[in-house]
């Protein structure tokens, strides 16, 4: 261990942020301990039904990450655990972890669930927020990782039944809490948040009225594995409501409670819940959202908000609800509110309280043990230019604990925190991880198929319904099957040993498991094959649990017949299986970062700190980008000073090669091996590199509205800022108009930063010239998160905020040299004239004009608005679908400095997961082109979503195996049928399909 550093990281909190950080770090060659207070990882995201703005099923997109975290050999999951002590310093910490007993041996429990079925004690299901019950021995949710049961010691009476019936002998009543000491180099805090307890807002009746629920309860209600099986029911009597009210800002933006901040995600999740609710019920459902401002500030959020209104008919009422009453006879609820100055009452069947985010439970203790600072709301203390650093060196933060935020921001910040955590221990890369050795692969190409079939009882999960011995007997008679057996649990460790024995003993060259789902278990069995020297693609799985014992649980005979069908069909396929090679490519450990603004510089610095060489290409003659025009912030930091120091760091770093006045001319190659030609002046240069980060920023919109460019008193906010900073400001009256050039038909989305920018300037004006009157004409004020404090401060200091809507946009005229603004006063219902000395327009950041050109060169997509489009809006915010190319900063979407920095660090981490490997091994299931058949029509090139196909010098299509994801769209569409999808060949698929049909159709 050079200079006493330890190549391991502790991640506290196993929500989506913690899991992302853990995966990134482990994937970069470091050991990770991921601890969570709960019995399973997944955090709040696992409790959600769908996610905005794509309406993806939350669990469906999260589960693969959880499974990966559970399987990654360099991640150790420690559940039911918390940190009790910390000593040492950055690079070399010692931490004490207390793990609460599960009363279950995690090594032995295989999650079959028999214990929970037979447990005689029922307990309130806290995971479903108390809306239903579970047994005293339980898992939190069906896809829980780790899938290990746990005894609720509070409720358990110790009857001993679970121990008696557990076939795996996993129940250990004598198990005690344990303490361990871990040595680590750095720490990432991702403990998330707790929901605000709405009992504190007594006027909304939560806890008194059964049909008033919280938004997180409503998520569980919407969820198919939630308390009501996905039906929306009124807890009072199980009827489907016809009208639901959503009340926003419960526990947020509330000075009375001391929770001034905005919880940042509630507007969007409520819109989503309203849309999904309408889809979930068989009757006409009215959804009404009561709000103060709709804060749809994220990527394409406003478009989603508009769709909610226009396509889904969600009703929005701008009003803070006064209180909620109940009709004791019907359990219906009366919502009392004021609209346009008039008090109103409306009856609803259900009320959903959009509860805000509070700091995680026991946050004071955590802060004390770790020695980190908290802000006034007890979230983690951070700064604009160091949004990931806590007050203690070596400890970093991400996710909602840093500030309330949504999922993609948490994920991006988590990758960012990984960069910081790795930088502390970069010298220790690869030292604490285990690399597994495998025996050489047996050549089976000349052997006849010899198939072994293993059928799982899964305790009684399968065996209780499906007649497993009958299925085994059936399998034995199938062609090329030389062996078949049944197992209590095919996934258990001793069965793996048995499978290996049988492979050796009987010279098996194909293995089939009839059990649960390949999505969770296929990697395990493939690993077993590999350990015995068989190619991992000589494996197939039949899911006789989900598709037989579960769906046909009340018809055992048919379940058994179907299990035989499924096993027969995979045997038919397995006979045709062929070993596949996993393509390997080398990696050039050099990065290319396009764009020299704060994002690009940060990415370059983080990559350099991890030991990689970086080329930083900037179009302009100097570094700095937008930050050059920012003179002060909402907080106290000095941005120009920070900019100077970042530029200095970049210039001094010998691993960073800065190319100014430089354009990208051409990009060739693929992940690990790119060749890029850059041009500066007349000189062209070639760079070889392994990854690309797009950090090209955005452009300020140049307004055509409101006499801009015609009257010199009309400025953009940026121009106003410059005047304020340079002492050139002199005005008695200033009017600011928000959303000039955004949230309109041409550009339907919000530009995220302009509200804060306007308030920043308004506060500066009040500071420099308190008597100056400032009017802000706005649609919604979107000062999300802690920025809400400044909105309040501006209002307190006399800045006048006047709302307008699309029917009453401000009017600006100039007559006889006088600038006149007419603003609609909604309460007075009249136009109010104001004569400003300065009219400041809040204009959006718009995509760079050359985005399209760059996107074409990189073969990456853009959004409708023209910003770069990431691989997945929720969980892959920094990756492109094309491997090896990443994204951060304004090029992704408008965002403030701290978010750009978080993303930039994150992009560096994502890139480093590739650069840190000497070679990349990719999935072997790829498309293959028969060169004799291909005529070079190019159809497959157009169809491939990953730009994995190109033409070779002879004009024939060629698959770049490292880019191919194996979807097979090219093969299905090839006019010459020249493309074969390996592992899913036509012959294999037909054999599998026909095997099921045989005997069913023709008797």
């Amino acid at each position: 261990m050079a200079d006493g550093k330890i190549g391991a990281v502790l991640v506290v909190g196993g929500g989506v942020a913690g899991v992302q950080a853990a995966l990134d770090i482990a994937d970069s060659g470091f050991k990770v301990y991921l601890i969570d207070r709960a019995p399973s990882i997944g955090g709040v995201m696992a409790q959600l039904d769908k996610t905005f703005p794509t309406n993806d099923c939350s669990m469906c997109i999260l589960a693969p990450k959880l499974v990966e975290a559970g399987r990654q050999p360099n991640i150790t999951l420690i559940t039911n655990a918390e940190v009790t002590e910390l000593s040492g310093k950055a690079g070399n910490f010692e931490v004490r972890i207390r793990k609460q007993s599960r009363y279950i041996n995690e090594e032995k429990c295989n999650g079959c669930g028999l214990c929970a079925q037979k447990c005689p004690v029922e307990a309130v299901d806290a995971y479903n927020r108390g809306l239903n019950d579970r047994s005293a021995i339980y898992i939190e949710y069906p896809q829980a990782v780790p899938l290990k049961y746990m005894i609720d010691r509070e409720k358990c009476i110790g009857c001993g039944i679970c121990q008696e019936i557990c076939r795996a002998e996993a129940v250990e009543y004598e198990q005690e809490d344990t303490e361990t000491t871990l040595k680590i180099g750095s720490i990432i805090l991702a403990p998330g948040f707790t929901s605000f307890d709405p009992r504190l807002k007594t006027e909304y009746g939560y806890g008194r009225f059964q049909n008033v629920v919280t938004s997180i309860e409503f998520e569980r209600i919407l969820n198919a594995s939630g308390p009501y099986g996905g039906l929306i029911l009124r807890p009072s009597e199980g009827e489907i409501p016809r009208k639901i009210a959503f009340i926003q800002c419960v526990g947020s933006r509330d000075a009375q409670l001391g929770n001034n901040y905005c919880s940042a995600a509630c507007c969007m999740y409520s819109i989503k819940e309203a849309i999904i609710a309408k889809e979930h019920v068989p009757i006409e459902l009215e959804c009404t959202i009561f709000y103060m401002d709709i804060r749809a500030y994220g990527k394409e959020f406003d478009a989603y908000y508009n769709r909610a209104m226009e396509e889904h008919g969600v009703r929005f009422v701008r009003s803070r609800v006064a209180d909620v009453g109940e009709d004791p006879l019907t359990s219906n609820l009366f919502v009392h509110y004021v609209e346009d100055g008039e008090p109103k009452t409306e009856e609803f069947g259900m009320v959903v309280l959009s509860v805000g985010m509070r700091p995680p439970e026991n946050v004071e203790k955590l802060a004390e043990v770790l020695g980190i600072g908290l802000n006034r709301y007890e979230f983690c203390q951070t700064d604009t230019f160091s949004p990931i650093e806590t007050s203690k060196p070596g400890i970093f933060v991400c996710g909602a604990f840093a500030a309330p935020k949504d999922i993609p921001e948490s994920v991006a910040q988590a990758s960012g925190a990984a960069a910081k955590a790795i930088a502390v221990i970069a010298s220790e890369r690869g030292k604490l991880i285990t690399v597994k050795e495998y025996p050489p692969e047996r050549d089976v190409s000349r052997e006849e198929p010899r198939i072994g079939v293993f059928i799982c009882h899964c305790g009684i999960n399968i065996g209780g319904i499906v007649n497993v011995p009958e299925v085994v007997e059936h399998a034995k008679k199938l062609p090329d099957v030389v062996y078949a057996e049944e197992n209590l649990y095919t996934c258990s460790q001793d069965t793996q040993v048995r499978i290996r024995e049988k492979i050796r003993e009987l010279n098996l060259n194909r293995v089939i498991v009839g059990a649960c789902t390949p999505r969770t278990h296929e990697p395990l069995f493939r690993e077993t094959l590999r350990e015995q020297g068989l190619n991992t693609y000589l494996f197939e799985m039949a899911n006789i649990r989900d598709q037989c014992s579960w769906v046909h649980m009340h018809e055992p005979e048919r379940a058994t017949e179907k299990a035989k069908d499924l096993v027969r069909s995979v045997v038919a396929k397995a006979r045709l299986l062929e070993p596949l090679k996993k393509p390997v490519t080398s990696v050039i450990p050099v990065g290319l970062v396009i764009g020299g603004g704060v994002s690009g510089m940060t990415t370059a610095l983080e990559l350099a700190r991890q030991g990689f060489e970086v080329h930083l290409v900037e179009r302009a003659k100097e570094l700095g980008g937008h930050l050059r025009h920012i003179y002060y912030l909402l907080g106290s930091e000095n941005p120009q000073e920070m900019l100077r120091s970042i530029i200095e760091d970049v210039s001094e770093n010998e691993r960073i090669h800065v190319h100014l006045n430089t354009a990208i001319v051409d990009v060739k190659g693929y992940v690990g091996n790119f060749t890029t030609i850059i041009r500066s002046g007349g000189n062209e240069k070639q760079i070889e590199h392994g990854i690309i980060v797009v950090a090209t920023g955005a452009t300020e919109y140049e307004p055509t509205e409101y006499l801009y460019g015609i009257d010199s008193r009309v400025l953009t906010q940026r121009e106003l800022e410059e005047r304020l900073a340079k002492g050139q400001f002199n005005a008695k009256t200033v009017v600011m108009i928000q959303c000039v050039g955004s949230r309109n038909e041409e550009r339907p989305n919000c530009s995220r930063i302009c509200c804060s920018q306007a308030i920043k300037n308004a506060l500066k004006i009040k500071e420099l010239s308190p008597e100056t009157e400032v009017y802000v004409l706005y649609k919604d004020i979107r000062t999300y998160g802690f920025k809400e404090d400044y909105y309040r401060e501006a209002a307190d200091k006399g800045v006048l905020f006047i709302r307008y809507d699309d029917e009453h946009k401000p009017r600006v005229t100039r007559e006889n040299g006088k600038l006149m603004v007419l603003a609609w006063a909604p309460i007075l219902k009249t136009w109010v004239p104001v004569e400003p000395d300065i009219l400041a327009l809040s204009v959006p950041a718009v995509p760079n004009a050359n985005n399209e050109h760059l996107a074409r060169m990189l073969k990456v997509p853009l959004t409708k608005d023209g910003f770069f489009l990431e691989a997945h809006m929720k969980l892959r915010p920094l990756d492109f679908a094309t491997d090896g190319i990443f994204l951060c900063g304004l090029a992704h979407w408008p965002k403030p400095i701290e978010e750009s920095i978080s993303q930039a660090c994150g992009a560096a981490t994502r890139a480093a997961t590739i650069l840190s490997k000497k070679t990349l091994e990719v999935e072997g299931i790829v498309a293959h082109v028969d060169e004799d058949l291909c005529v070079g029509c190019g159809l497959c090139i157009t169809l491939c979503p990953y730009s994995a196909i190109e033409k070779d010098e002879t004009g024939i299509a060629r698959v770049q195996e490292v880019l191919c994801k194996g979807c097979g769209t090219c093969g299905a569409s090839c006019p010459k049928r020249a493309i074969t999808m390996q592992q899913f060949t036509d012959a294999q698929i037909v054999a599998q399909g026909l095997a099921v049909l045989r005997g069913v159709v023709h008797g």
Partner: protein
Amino acid sequence: MSFGKPKIVCFVCNWAFTEQELAVSRIRKVADMSVVRVMCVGRIDPVIMLETFIKGADGVLLVGCAPPDCHFVEGNVYAELTVKVLKKLLVLADLEPERLEVRWVSPVEEVRFTGIIEDFAKQLKKLGPSPLAKEKYDVNILEDVSAAKNAVADFRLRALIGKEKELTRSVNAYGERISQIEFNALLDEVVKAEFIRHKILVLARKKPFSVRELAEVLNIKPAVVLRHILNMRRKGMIALANIDGATPLYEALEVR
């Protein structure tokens, strides 16, 4: 209606009496009785006891050896615990719990089988004939006793009955003793819950029911019924049949 001799089914321990002691003709005068000899009263399944009521017995009596004496160590103790639970169920089913009794005789005492029967017959006479013994039996009570019978046929209640002695008089899996008060509280809760759930099951076999309809029939709060429905769904006892407008209807699942 005149009530002559109550119909009594008496389960008697093989070891408590001799044949002679049982064959006393005087008994015929006070009760219409059938005596079933078993190896131990601990063998009498709670399902059998309730089935006996369903078939029209006015009273069910278990007579065995007084604790601590039992030919089979402690079958008598289990019989007593079972009867305790059944009495709770009878109350819920609206059938007088005094119709079910367990009586002990000690081998060292002078045994008075006749006396025991006479006392029980007297007790039953006060209660009058069982509502299930009449020509026009009470349909509701029959349904309730059937639900109770199904409840004691199910795993959860049987498991608790079987574990009571060990948990309250010895130690549980954690080496702790559970107080009788705590156990009784749990038992009461489970007895009630299982009774209601099996009653819902009986109802939902006839036709699909909504939570509201069930609440009306059972005379309990709809929110409580919903909770039971959720637990029954979790345990695979019932399923959603269809949704009538805004009202989900639930039906019993036959195969379990």
